[in-house]
């Protein structure tokens, strides 16, 4: 199954043919926030461990 046919199956019926996924900003936001959170948390954990040594 190709990626395209799956995409079409998932898309809103009225948009079939346009092939666009509209919106989805919440997923983008979630990704970037998660990345930021990861960096902050990991940096903090490294800083704490460096302090302990």
């Amino acid at each position: 199954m190709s990626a395209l046919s799956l995409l079409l199956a998932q898309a809103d019926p009225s948009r079939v043919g346009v092939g666009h996924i509209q919106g989805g900003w919440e997923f983008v936001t979630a990704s970037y926030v998660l990345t930021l959170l990861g960096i902050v948390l990991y940096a903090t954990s490294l800083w704490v461990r460096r302090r302990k040594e």
Partner: protein
Amino acid sequence: MPNWLANALLILPAGLLIAICFKRDLIEIGWKVMAVQAAIMLPVAAYLGLVWAPPEREMGDVYRIIYAHVPQVWMALLGVTLNFGCSLAYLMKKSWTADALAEASAEVGLYFGIVGVTLGAIWGKPTWGVYWTWDPRLTSAAVMLIYYTGYLAMRRFTENPDTRATWSAALGTFGIVIPVTVYFSVVWMKSLHQVQSTPKTVDPQMVFALRWAACAFLCLLITFTYQRYKVARAALAREVAPPEALSGPPPSSNDVAKVAV
């Protein structure tokens, strides 16, 4: 935006790495330079990815996840490859530097891998309708995380530093099978994961934003790995006191720990 600019961004980290090979002392300044470069480049990378790059034809704005997802997965693979290199180096010549760097690169690689795989799952929801598509690349990347969790667990569970170093070097060397599996899993199992597109077929703005993000995360990887290396090194220094510390006047009960054999 010309691509030479994106390539030029790599000159600083690459140059620093080469310089450090010749002059070890540079590393203390070097990591700070990397930290600053990461701190400057990451917000810009977010701007480039979220605003500056145009929406994609098929996936609209959702595709912007790749500017966070792809570079972090690359960094995970880079960390694991670095771990392989250090493991091999340790097997050739016993060195605590190689051992500590192997530990650091495994953990940092694991960190980027966890974030990268999670973002991959988030990416799956709007594009394929489910978080987990059982896409071979996603799944094999997740399996890779399990392996390196096991690697770090083994290190935690082994008290003797010499044994721990040898075993983890062996695990790290054998572990090269796994990133190779991640890479080829798509070929072995017909998959819906995007086959890597070459820069030529994609909008140059997208290529530039991705390269910028990759460079930013590379600087972050170097910073994190070096800091983690310092932690590992300090722990080793505590465990592996040189025998000179034992020389001198008659033994007292606290200068040599009692040993059960």
